[in-house]
């Protein structure tokens, strides 16, 4: 979307030419800063200073039980991480989940978006609302409901699977089946993805489809060669958030297994391992090191995504914002 912002670089260039600000510029600066001051203060107090403080704490053995005994221990926390089996396990769990969840969620989201966007669907607004609705269910309640649904005795998943003669795994206690279960629960939150993909699809000019029909492209070809590239900015945005989300994944893992990380550390996600170290074992120095590594991973992933985005993300306006 073209915004007035795009005009501003020229204006800023003009500003740098004359060193003294005009009274109008001063007025703009004064009021601008005045209005954004809540965020500026908040950013300083709740973001910038804490991020720096986390880095400093990462070089200490800070323990909230004995805060006065804190000592600088150099890179020890980071070297401990390298040999900490739980850290590697949690990274493995997180990556495994992300590799499974992201494609499934995107596939499901694209399917839902195409479905509710289809001209052949009656009452599409009602469907849209109802497919979105589970995203509004508080995550703890969703976890509790699905823990019941996945129950081996009375849960409906296994009743259904058993009825058609399929194997009935113990979802919650199997180191293999817990992941599909988590992905399945995550699908309840597909609403946002569905809506944004759908809005993206509605933004594709219909002439392109008409031209493709004349060229003899079938439905699937149009979807792959027109829809997907045209909505690639939306896909990119959601992909970035989901990838980061995997490293912040905590709530459901905690609710389903009461924060134990079980079975056999299969739900010991990176963020859960961070929480246990920092707030259960009170190893806040070590927790800070874990947090900073998490921050670097997220930063790195985002950088990689942005760096490669030029190759596959198509911005119709060509402005690439």
């Amino acid at each position: 979307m073209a915004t007035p912002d795009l005009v501003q670089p020229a204006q800023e260039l003009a500003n740098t030419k004359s060193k003294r600000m005009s009274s109008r510029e001063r007025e703009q600066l004064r009021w601008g800063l005045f209005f954004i001051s809540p965020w500026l203060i908040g950013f300083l107090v709740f973001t910038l200073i804490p991020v720096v403080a986390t880095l400093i704490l990462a070089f200490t053995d800070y323990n909230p039980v004995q805060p006065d005994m804190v000592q600088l221990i150099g890179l020890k926390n980071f070297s401990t991480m390298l040999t900490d089996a739980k850290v590697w396990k949690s990274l493995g769990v997180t990556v495994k989940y992300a590799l499974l969840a992201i494609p499934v969620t995107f596939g499901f989201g694209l399917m839902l978006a195409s479905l509710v966007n289809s001209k052949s669907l009656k009452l599409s607004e009602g469907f849209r609302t109802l497919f979105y609705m589970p995203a509004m269910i508080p995550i703890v309640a969703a976890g509790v409901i699905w823990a019941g649904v996945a129950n081996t005795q009375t849960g409906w998943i296994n009743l259904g699977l058993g009825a058609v003669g399929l194997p009935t795994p113990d979802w919650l206690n199997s180191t293999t089946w817990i992941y599909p279960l988590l992905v399945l629960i995550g699908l309840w939150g597909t609403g946002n993805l569905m809506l944004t993909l759908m809005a993206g699809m509605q933004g594709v000019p219909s002439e392109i489809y008409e031209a493709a029909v004349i060229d003899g492209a079938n439905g699937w070809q149009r979807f792959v060669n027109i829809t997907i590239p045209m909505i690639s900015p939306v896909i990119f945005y959601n992909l970035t958030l989901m990838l980061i989300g995997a490293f912040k994944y905590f709530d459901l893992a905690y609710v389903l297994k009461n924060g134990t990380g079980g079975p056999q550390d299969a739900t010991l996600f990176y963020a859960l391992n961070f929480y246990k170290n920092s707030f259960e074992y009170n190893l806040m120095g070590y927790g800070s090191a874990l947090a900073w590594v998490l921050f670097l991973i997220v930063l790195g992933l985002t950088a990689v995504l942005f760096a490669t985005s030029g190759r596959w993300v198509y911005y119709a306006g060509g402005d690439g914002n």
Partner: protein
Amino acid sequence: MIMTTQAIPKRSYHQRELLNKVLVTSIALFLLLIFLAPLGYMFTTAIKSDAQMSDPQAPVIWPHSKATFEYNGESYELFNVPIDGNVQELAMVKKTRTQSEFLDPDNPEAGTILWEGNWRTLDPVYVRDPQWQNFKKAWDDLNFPRLFLNTLIIAGFGTLGAVGSSVFVAYGFARFNFRGKNVLFMILIATIILPVQATLIPTFIFFSRIGWTNTLLPLIVPHYFANAYNVFLMRQYFMQIPRAMDEAAMIDGAGRLRTFWSVILPQSIPALTAVSLFHFFFAWNDFFSPLVYLASKPELWPLSVGLQRFNALYGRQPNLIQAGALITLVLPVLIFFFAQRIFMQGIVFTGVDK
């Protein structure tokens, strides 16, 4: 029957259209039913009795109890008893492994009927028996009113701060030009990817030093300093309001604040509503922050933490757990249904424009 292609009457455009509609809508309906089936599980489980939960013979889906027959002040269980090839519903008076005595509920005066065989092989008679009082029990056991009040305080005051600060900041970014503004805006947007863990420990230490841990303040106060999603949404909205409106107000002698208050804000009600809803749902949902700041203060827990602990403690009573889940999700889901248009527009607004 085999037909040649020529024999198939070519369907008219309208017929094909109709067929498509029926097909696509049926697929959507089928998918929706599966998608929402866990809610059916939740509801039917919530109204089951404790006895049914632990009875492997009981019907699986609907809430049922074993039927009983009252006679002379005594209560007898009903069983399906096969006698002479007919299955009769009889009340068991006396049971042993080889023979049992039954009463016919329709004719108890006739005395007992003797049946040979192990009573354990008999199927009990079940009747539909929803346990509505489970909701009351879950309500009390969860201490729902307190959890609800805590959640409402956190969500209410948080929403006030999140909306108030975000409109302010968004107006600053939308209407004023100053050096460094674009860089600041980029930084604001970049905070979206910042994991909460990267700031959590120092913030926690800070809050505990000033005595705020085990109070609701850490869950409310930080939201009074605007956040990226809300500012982005409001800014997009403000930029659609013509600048001429501000200028007209200022020519009439209104100051900056007055223009903001009486010209811009009244026009932004849809965006304000969307942002309020976002924060309200966020706060209702938030599990991590209350877990960190209120772990040892049960009387301040919001619903999220309360329900998780309830789930951990009441593992043997899944019916009460599901009843608890139901009462926690009713309000957000109802609000969503009432405000869904504004809400979903807001999602599209923030999600697509980036």
